[in-house]
């Protein structure tokens, strides 16, 4: 029983660490602020959630202070799960209101949307997409978005 709880704690903590590292890698490599919000939201939900669940299982298996520690862990978890979407929504609203365009929309308006625009191959380039060889390489979304502006 104790062994099973230890294994469960290990599994939850390592899964949370995996989601944390994946989200952090996405925050570095994804091309603009809206796609980076996706990676940050995954970190907040799954990474913090799984790690705090692992700590919860460990606190239950340790058995001491049975009221204080798990209840506080649940408080932290609930608070993070309420505030993280609010903060992400406020960031998206402020970015849209501040004039940041989503990178597919900006690339379609300037007419240089490459075919693999969603792959995020540029690690440091924010909205600097690599120009394609010819203008006919614009994708389907580029056609419908670029038609309105041009």
């Amino acid at each position, binding site marked *: 029983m104790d062994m099973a709880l230890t294994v469960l*704690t*290990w599994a939850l*903590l*390592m899964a*949370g*660490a995996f989601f*944390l*590292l994946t*989200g*952090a*890698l996405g*925050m*570095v490599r994804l091309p603009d*602020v809206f796609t*980076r*919000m996706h990676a*940050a939201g995954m*970190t*907040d939900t799954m*990474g*913090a959630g799984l*790690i*705090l669940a*692992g*700590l919860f299982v*460990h*606190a239950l298996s340790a058995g001491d*202070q049975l009221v*204080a*520690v798990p209840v*506080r*862990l649940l*408080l*932290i978890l609930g*608070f*993070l799960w309420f*505030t*993280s979407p*609010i*903060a*992400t929504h*406020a*960031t998206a*609203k*402020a*970015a*849209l*209101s*501040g004039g*940041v365009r989503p990178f597919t929309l900006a690339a379609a308006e300037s007419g240089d949307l490459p075919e693999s625009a969603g792959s995020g191959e540029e690690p*440091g380039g*924010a*909205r600097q997409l690599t120009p394609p060889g010819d203008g006919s390489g614009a994708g389907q979304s580029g056609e419908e978005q670029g038609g309105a502006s041009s």
Partner: protein
Amino acid sequence: MFAVTAAALLVAMGLAMCRALLGPTAYDRVLALNNIGTKTVVLIAVLGFLNGRPDFLDLAIAYALINFIGTIAVLKYIEYGDLGAPSRPDGRETN
């Protein structure tokens, strides 16, 4: 196992700090700092278990509150240019 989790948290915070330093717009920096704050909350909780002092969870709760309010305040200041303004100063409708 808590040490491994704390190391993963520190690596993730380092990557998010790279984004906060590189970020081309202010919103990237705010998003990265909010993310670092969330990871700090989890790191404080993990460090409490690592040191055998679960009292650190109170600090984690307080830090979560401060982080959320700070993020919202900075975003409102960036968006409206004033912390008390009900709408945009140029009278444009907000969406």
